[in-house]
């Protein structure tokens, strides 16, 4: 369940991201198997930037994948079913309301205007749009494709080309209903939207926002007929590569090849089955027994063990897009004192977490921008200088702040959290004289207290966001959603200005430098939101699934990738 909320939040944040290139080549993306991430487990299944993948992956596997990538469509075997599993269900086929597993399936059924490889900033994959232009800083005009035809269906939706009316209907729907995922995007981020010509769509941002267009990569467009019928929850058909054949809420979904998909001969496989298996042991058993094709082990140790045990599988090893964070309450209490916050910042031994929880070499230290976005993360030497582990200095800071006899705060976290994680944190904090009074909470209660700022010291595990600006948003006044929700109370005008400057910067190199500058500013201000480390994620896949590449974007959610095929 937790994943769904991260995903929702992630999409909210994504609206802030901007598309740097104003136009680009048409066509779907080249990157690989979306199921690597979607299929098995958590958000952190997702692939990493290429450079990270090369660094951590298996060279032989990389070579194999490159060879596969050069195959021409004629050489590619077609047919077969890819079977994936997930521990999170999805409860609706409504692309504007679904969360979690729905985000895995629905991008393959519906179309979006465009998508972008989230770990990079310059690759755009167009879908319903063929290009867009920006006549001014806030206006975006999209040229639309005219050959995206709605698949044959039994819902009474005609097999016609998707058009601008479908897009506007979706925006209208989200604008009108506060409960829908895209409400803020349609209602707050847009000044206006509507047709701009016979086959053009225009969106106007409510302010200069370098990340505005990014919101569209999470916005799916069902046919207007389904919106008007009010049946989106149970009926799904669009112009995407697959069609929903069977959906049983809480159990499984099966999507089959759309024979009229506009990019032929894609997709190569006949079907994808996504089965919800909540229990980890059952997921593992299903993989070992070859009832599913993919599995994400709990850690590298389990992955190593399965590689020895199961024949005919290979591993994708990537730095996780998720991290675990500590958040301090800054509205009142001891963490209003910058020295106390800094003591926590440098009293956390990130390497110790990695060594004890993941095994040495199986994770990377995090800072304000996490390791996944290596191009935006501060260099190691600066990280060491600004937040390096220094328990002596931490104790001195606490003493200077009047806590020489120790500090005791309530520590809340959602269960289940790794049994090993909390003791390490407790010990590290005890070492610098901070007593954490444990209050484990069920997820719902924890979320509620987090949202309302009812905490002193909070742990939020497995957060996963798709771009670096989302990471910075936790440090801005009013919090990541800019409405006071999930806000630590941290407010610093210099930090706000640094984040605003990034959003207004259109040049990619200049923007990257602004990211570095903002992180320095945040670290110097002693942040209240402290990322810890990113573990490596292992995904095990049977050898007969081919046609995907490692490191080419976490295609799970935001890319319509489906060039994988089965070759037994």
């Amino acid at each position, binding site marked *: 369940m937790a994943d769904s909320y*991260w995903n929702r939040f992630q999409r909210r944040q994504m609206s802030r991201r901007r598309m740097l290139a104003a136009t680009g080549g048409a066509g779907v993306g080249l990157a690989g198997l979306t199921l690597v991430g979607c299929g098995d487990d958590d958000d952190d299944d997702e692939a990493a930037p290429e450079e990270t993948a090369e660094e951590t992956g298996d060279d032989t596997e990389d070579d194999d994948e490159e060879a596969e990538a050069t195959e021409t469509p004629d050489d590619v075997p077609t047919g077969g079913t890819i079977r994936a599993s997930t521990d999170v269900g999805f409860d609706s086929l409504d692309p504007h309301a679904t969360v979690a597993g729905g985000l895995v399936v629905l991008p393959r059924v519906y179309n979006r205007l465009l998508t972008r490889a989230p770990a990079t900033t310059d690759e755009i994959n167009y879908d319903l749009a063929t290009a867009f232009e920006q006549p001014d800083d806030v206006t975006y005009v999209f040229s639309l494709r005219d050959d995206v035809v709605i698949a044959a269906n039994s819902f009474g939706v005609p097999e016609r080309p998707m058009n601008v009316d479908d897009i506007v209907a979706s925006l209208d729907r989200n604008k009108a209903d506060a*409960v829908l995922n895209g409400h803020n995007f349609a209602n707050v981020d847009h000044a206006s939207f509507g047709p701009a010509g016979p086959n053009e769509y225009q969106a106007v941002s409510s302010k200069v926002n370098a990340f505005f267009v990014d919101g569209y990569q999470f916005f799916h467009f069902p046919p207007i007929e389904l919106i008007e019928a009010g049946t989106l929850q149970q009926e799904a058909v669009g112009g995407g590569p697959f069609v929903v054949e069977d959906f049983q809420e809480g159990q499984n979904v099966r999507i089959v090849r759309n024979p009229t998909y506009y990019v032929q001969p894609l997709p190569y496989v006949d079907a994808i089955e996504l089965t919800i298996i*909540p*229990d980890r042991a059952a997921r593992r*058993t299903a993989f070992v*027994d070859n009832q599913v094709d993919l599995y994400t082990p709990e850690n590298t140790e389990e992955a190593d063990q399965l590689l020895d045990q199961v024949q005919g599988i290979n591993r994708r090893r990537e730095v996780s897009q998720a991290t675990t964070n500590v958040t301090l309450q800054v509205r009142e209490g001891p963490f209003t004192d910058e020295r106390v916050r800094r003591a926590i910042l440098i009293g956390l031994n990130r390497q110790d977490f990695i060594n004890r929880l993941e095994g040495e070499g199986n994770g990377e230290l995090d800072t304000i921008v996490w390791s996944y976005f290596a191009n935006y993360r501060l260099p190691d030497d600066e990280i060491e200088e600004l937040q390096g582990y220094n328990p002596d200095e931490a104790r001195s800071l606490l003493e200077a702040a009047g806590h020489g006899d120790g500090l005791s705060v309530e520590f809340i976290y959602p269960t289940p959290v790794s049994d090993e994680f909390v003791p390490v944190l407790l010990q590290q904090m005890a070492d610098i004289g901070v007593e954490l009074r444990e209050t484990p909470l069920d997820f719902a209660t924890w979320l509620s207290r987090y949202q309302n700022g009812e905490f002193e010291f909070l742990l939020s595990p497995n957060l996963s966001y798709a771009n670096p600006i989302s990471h910075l948003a936790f440090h801005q006044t009013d919090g990541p959603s800019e*409405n006071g929700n999930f806000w630590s109370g941290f407010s610093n005008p210099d930090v706000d200005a640094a984040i605003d400057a990034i959003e207004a910067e259109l040049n990619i190199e200049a923007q990257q430098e602004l990211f570095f500058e903002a992180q320095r500013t945040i670290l110097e201000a002693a942040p209240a939101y402290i990322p810890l480390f990113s573990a490596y994620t292992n995904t095990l896949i049977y050898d007969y699934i081919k046609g995907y590449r490692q490191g080419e974007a976490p295609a799970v959610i935001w890319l319509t990738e489906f060039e994988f095929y089965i070759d037994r």
Partner: protein
Amino acid sequence: MRNYIIRRLLASVLILWIISVAVFVMLRIAPTDPAILLLGFSATPESIEAVHEQTGLNDPWHEQYFDWLGDVLTGDLGHSIFTGEDVATELKERLPATLELVILTFATTIIIGIPLGVVSAVYRNTPLDLGVRFIAILGLSIPTFWIATLVLLVPSEQWGYAPPIGETVSFFDDPWDNLRQFGPPALILGFAAAAALMRLVRSSLLEVLQQDYIRTARAKGLRERVVVFGHAVRNSLIPVVTVLGLQLAGLLGGTVIVETVFTIRGVGSYILTAIVRNDFLVVQSVALYLAATVVILNLIVDLLYAWLDPRIRYS
């Protein structure tokens, strides 16, 4: 007897009403706002308010309760606030799987529990008795979720065998795969329930074996098998009926964990999911439904008990 049944029925209605109020109040006083769970990190005060309005959470408690109760009494169990699914429809879809699991478990319980209890009593204080009692303690003390995990993992890792995982297989579609899927969880639940049953059978039978009429039967020269099975066992099973009834009712709740582990789409996994995400209408309706089932089963057991034991009937 008729008065007894009427009294019990009236008491059952009262019990169900108390349960419905208790569940309703507990869900409302829980600190969790389902709107926040529904909206997650994208929640805004505006969207939370919209969910409250759409789901009736803004109404006074008594209005919410009586609206829901009125719907339930007319057969409308409400809709999930997360999926929009009709609770009655969902129950109808999931009930066969849970019923099959309960029936198989119940059969396992009886098949294991009663014979072992009899053996344990007849061979009292022998190694056989000690062995049976050890098994009983094992069954009572091992957590179901742990043994369920072992039952999944060990055959898979050691012998390459696994039951079908994922989609729930209907008996009518594929009887063999259905039994492969339902057999292990039924055995696990049945083993735990049988452990309690065999201890009860043992103590009950030991008590009966001390009775005068058993001594008389032996004095008459009846064979021991006839004494035990013809006189003692039958009488010792009267209190067992009550326990079996309670166990049957308890199994409805006991399926929650194994349904989740073995990916069986039943009522147990349904209410577990609803509780986790505070889907209050689903929890209220399913809890009431399960409570009604338990109350009815208890009533049947009590009537059966009265029918089996004339002393109770006459009193």
